[in-house]
């Protein structure tokens, strides 16, 4: 029961953070990011709702959404790491300023879109009926 509540809260948190980050945090509109991010935020809030009401499909939907969050989050971190590799290769060491900037962005993405989905996927296993 406590895992269900934890996943519900975590999904609600991710949904709100992604939506606020995209629609209030980003300075300009760029449709691929806006669309994907908004879909992700809506899906996270939807799963939180399904879990909260104890819907029959809640676990299956949550698993799919968590995998989507994990894939997009890890892709985002990979692209950031690739960016640092390209800039380092072309420009030389990216310096403390560049590393700080990229590191900050990566630190904002890693906990919410990589670590938290991984943790929730582990919790989710405990909600599933044992075979």
């Amino acid at each position, binding site marked *: 029961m406590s895992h269900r509540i934890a996943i519900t809260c975590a999904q609600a948190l991710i949904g709100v953070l992604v939506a606020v980050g995209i629609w209030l945090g980003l*300075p300009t509109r760029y449709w691929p990011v806006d669309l994907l991010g908004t879909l992700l935020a809506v899906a996270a809030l939807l799963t939180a709702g399904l879990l909260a009401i104890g819907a029959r499909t809640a676990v299956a939907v949550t698993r799919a959404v968590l995998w989507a969050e*994990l894939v997009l989050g*890890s892709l985002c*971190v*990979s*692209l950031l*790491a*690739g*960016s*640092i*590799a*390209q*800039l*380092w*290769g*072309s*420009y*030389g*060491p*990216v*310096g403390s*300023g*560049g590393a*700080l*900037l990229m590191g900050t962005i990566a630190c904002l993405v890693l906990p919410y879109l990589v670590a938290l989905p*991984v943790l929730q*996927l*582990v919790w989710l296993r405990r909600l599933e009926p044992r075979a």
Partner: protein
Amino acid sequence: MSLRRYLIGWLFVTCAACAVIYARAHIGSAPLPDAATQAWAYAALATPPGEALPPLPPGRPPRADGPIFVSAYVRGELQSRYVGTNDLVATIEAARAELAKQPLRGPIHRVLWTRGESPLVAVPGLSLFSLVPLHDGLVARCGERTVYLTPDDLLAREAYDHARKPPVPDLTFGTELAPLRAALAEAVALDAAAFERECSLRRIRITPLQRVAADESAGLREVQSAAREHARFILRHQASSGRFTYIYDAQRDRVRARNQYSLARHGGTAFFLAQAAHRLRMPEARAGALRALDFVRRETLDTCGGQDRACAIWRGRVEMGASALSALAAAELLRSGDDPAARELLRGLLAFMRAQQRPDGELMHEYDRKRGRPIDVQRMYYSGEAALALLAGYEALGNAADKQAAERLIPHLTGAAWSFFGSRYFYGEEHWTCQAVARAGAHMNVRGALEFCRRWGEFQARLQYGPGVTPWPAMGAFGVGPVLLPRATTAASRVEALAPIYLALAARGQQDPELRALLERSVGLLLRMRWSGRETHLFADPRAAMGGMPSTLAELTSRVDMVQHAGSALLAWAELLERSR
């Protein structure tokens, strides 16, 4: 797929991809010939046909990592280019023979040395950063044909650093690749689709050989001479109406239109001319400053809230910043001799500024002329500019009301206005405020304000680039990322503010060698970046461009405030050197 497998796979793929991207993006850097051999190349090119070449310095020059380019420019335009081999002597001899076939009048030669080549790599969304500005060009190989765009070509096209303009003042970045592909396709007479199909496009690293070794000295004489050149540049491009050339385009030797004239920058430039008149004993600079103030009086001046209160109005808006800087210019002008009109202008502008003051010392930066009352909003720079103007005005006119206004404004700006959780870890643009603080030391107790400016200086030291932090000779610049070209103005404005702060601290027995080193590095940057007759091959009229100051090393234009800030900074540094003797 299990979660564990996914995570292990993701980490492996990411690390491997990063290693591949790095290896492909990394470009070699073949050594350059020594300074004597570099100078020999230019001396050889300048030797008339039929005459013996100057002797080659001892030792065999290294080979380039690709072709050596010899270009000839006349009035800023490329007239001919010889693409040689990687052997310097053979290339120079062949280029001389080639250039002799088409004699040019007063050509400026440029020898470019290829140092490496690599694939054109771009992580999605990062293609704007695929070329390192000023270092990287492009080579397209299409069967038997090879065409190049050298860094000089990209500079002339204004390709570097202009791709994106985020909503941050004066910030641009990135190089758009699409127009460069189109230019290369045109050069090999292919359409875009055929070019993509038949040609391979690669990045090429190229360094120009130097005619003479760069002079890095920043002694008093060099600094004063550079400041004088900045003043002469401004005067050369000032209209008889007193208006300055806002943006000068050196590539075409003309004014760049379309940009809106800033009255605040007009006032700031008049201030620098007045400084030059006084400190460098330049009567022509005084005449220029008088013309500029006459422009303010004639084109912008009106009254705001009383017949004795003069305010500058520009495009229908009361301009507090321009009023303050015009007052500052008038006060500075009075130091090199009296002028009744400047005195009258100063008196009126100071009265307006005093009337804009709130009880807590802060100024209200807007004025509603219809309702006849100030609007209590604050804009960046204005209060600092006004504080400096009030102090300079007090020194010029001796009106105690100006001193009292500054006595209330400065503690507010350096105290209550910058007091919040985290205010010790982040600072704004305080270069005008700290100039005012240094000046106020002679008239009031500024212990707290001086401490504020010392902390501001420490914060700037954190942002200053040391050697090798960026790919460019940017030591002394300020910034937070090495992929953005460093800007001259930030370095100049820090020197303007921190040189007087250094002197004010020293006068209290607080020697700060680290602050002095910071200033020295920034002055070095300004001397390297100014247009001084070193690299003029892309200028239509190098003499007309002398003394200009680009915003970045990738600019062939000079905006008037860049020159003003650099000039004022050099004068501040010169004063420090004089008083440190």
